[in-house]
């Protein structure tokens, strides 16, 4: 099993909070320092997607495209034809929300190393409301052959993921959120594309999360422990390729699976895990996330509460699920 050091301040008031996109900004600059083929494009969101750090360090390798997401990714495709590794940043609602076909035809079909950076994803973008809360991007990008899909859990992991996709020579999607979120990993925590990590061992139920929801699952597991339910927490930063081995092993061990994501469960992490289990190891599954509906305006905290995606709400739902569901595949 992989050793995964967790932030010791995880459940204290002192836990450091930082937007996931901040890690991306640092990672992109570092990737630019490591490889002069790395270039960045942005569609009028240089500051908010944190490409600003890169732009200041490498002004000659930064391309402003204006508010034009179709142009953003197709220009990126042209830059990659000319030998570059291109990071194309925008809001996930518009990229890949608006330019999916261009990403498919000019990037993924060609297996070219354009990195689509979708910022401000999920309900945590808050008051902007449903139009700007991208919830379908995981599903949209996961069905695209050749595409790598990564949803980092915190800013430290986002930095590592950015450096990793700068070197993977594949079309890749990196999903980020706007809000400050608690940092649960450490500089020493591992990150590798395609690998899932056991953050907490348990034997009653497997809680599998991606992105910001992993922290909420850790919080839920702590509450559940107080109720005598021993939950395993699996962090799945790479949605594609999925770490089948870790997921199947955990499902086999606990016999009950819960998935959680700040996205539509249809086609998202919940969809991916359900497909895998359905084929290889049919297991009762509870999928938490957006249940075939759009978001709405509110503060991020209000919305997590409203949609039942806080540690407390998740713990309640998992407790019911565990009570009502027999364990499958127990050795």
């Amino acid at each position, binding site marked *: 099993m992989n050793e995964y050091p967790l932030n010791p301040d995880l459940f204290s008031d002192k836990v450091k909070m930082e937007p996931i996109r901040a890690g991306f900004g640092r990672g992109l600059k570092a990737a630019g320092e490591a490889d002069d083929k790395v*270039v960045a494009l942005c569609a009028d969101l240089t500051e908010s997607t944190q490409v600003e750090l890169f732009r200041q360090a490498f002004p*000659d*390798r930064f*391309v402003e*495209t*204006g508010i*034009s997401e*179709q*142009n953003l990714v*197709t*220009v*990126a*495709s*042209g*830059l*990659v*034809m*000319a*030998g*570059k590794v291109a990071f194309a940043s925008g809001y996930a609602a518009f990229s890949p929300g608006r330019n999916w*076909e*261009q990403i498919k*035809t*000019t990037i993924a*079909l*060609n*297996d070219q190393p354009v990195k689509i950076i979708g910022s401000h994803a999920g309900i945590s973008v808050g008051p902007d409301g449903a139009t700007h809360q991208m919830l379908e991007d995981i599903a949209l990008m996961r069905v695209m052959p050749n595409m790598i899909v990564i949803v980092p859990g915190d800013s430290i992991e986002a930095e590592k993921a950015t450096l990793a996709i700068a070197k993977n020579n594949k079309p890749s999607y990196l999903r980020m959120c706007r809000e400050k979120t608690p940092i649960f990993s450490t500089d020493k925590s591992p990150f590798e594309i395609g690998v899932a990590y056991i953050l907490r061992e348990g034997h009653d139920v497997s809680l599998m999360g991606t992105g910001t929801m992993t922290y909420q699952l850790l919080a839920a597991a702590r509450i559940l422990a107080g109720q005598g339910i021993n939950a395993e927490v699996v962090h799945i930063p790479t949605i594609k390729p999925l770490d089948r081995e870790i997921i199947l092993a955990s499902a086999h061990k606990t016999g009950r699976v819960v998935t959680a994501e700040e996205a539509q469960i249809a086609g998202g992490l919940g969809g991916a895990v359900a497909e895998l289990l359905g084929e290889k190891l049919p297991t009762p599954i509870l999928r938490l996330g957006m249940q075939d509906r759009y978001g709405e305006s509110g503060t991020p905290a209000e919305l997590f509460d409203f949609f039942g995606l806080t540690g407390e709400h998740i713990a309640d739902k998992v407790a019911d699920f565990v009570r009502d569901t027999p364990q499958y595949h127990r050795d």
Partner: protein
Amino acid sequence: MNKRLTIDQLQSKANDIRQDIIRMLGAAGSGHTAGSLDLADILAALYFDIMKIDPSNPDWSDRDIFLLSNGHTVPVQYAAMAEAGFFDKEELMTLRKLGSRLQGHPERTKLPGLENTSGPLGSGLSQAAGYAYSLQYMDNNKHRFVYTIMGDGELDEGNVWEAAMFAGKYKLSQLIAFIDRNNIQIDGNTEDVMPLGDLAAKWRSFGWHVFEIDGHNIQSIIDTVNMAKAITNRPCMIIAYTIPGKGVDFMEYDYKWHGVAPNSEQTETALQELKASSDSEDTK
């Protein structure tokens, strides 16, 4: 190309390309005839005179770049590539067939010498602009050029105008684009389906230098590209007026040939006509 071809020889190449197109589409039983035929003169000029390319080394690092944006006309590109020696002409007959490198729309990973994947309209100009941006601003390379061709119906796509603004802003002087102004699209004439109006004025207003030429006059195509190369402070758009179905009498000007391939009888008739015009040129 070691030895420069004469205009007569280039016209003969264009005729060969047209015959290849008819044979390929006849064998395939589906595909886009009108636009493929009308681009034969531009492709002959590009592949046999204008572009710096090496068919025996498609990835040559010093090559010029060609992106066909209206990918449905790819039979003309396959024919030009085969005539130029990128692959054997026999392979043209595999067009659109299972296992072929000659997909119904061009795919970069399938065939060496294809720079892009296209078909869904509106993206080629942005890709060409991205490449030209890299040459001009990142690679300090001033001697390679990026060529692209769009259909006129393609200009209905918003992506095109995003690219127009982008290339204008950055004065991408190594970008030379063509519009195949044949006035047809699937549903009819372009000015009925979605009027394009004064195209030259539109592109000028985006910061482009615009030329308007007869897209079947090879001398004019070559001269215009030479002028375009000499313009170093803006991208160039060459609006090439063409006749859809050019070279085959019963196809010319008829939008119904946009997305249809000739049957065996029509294939024979078309080939006879093209051969006859080729013979008459030879005896001139």
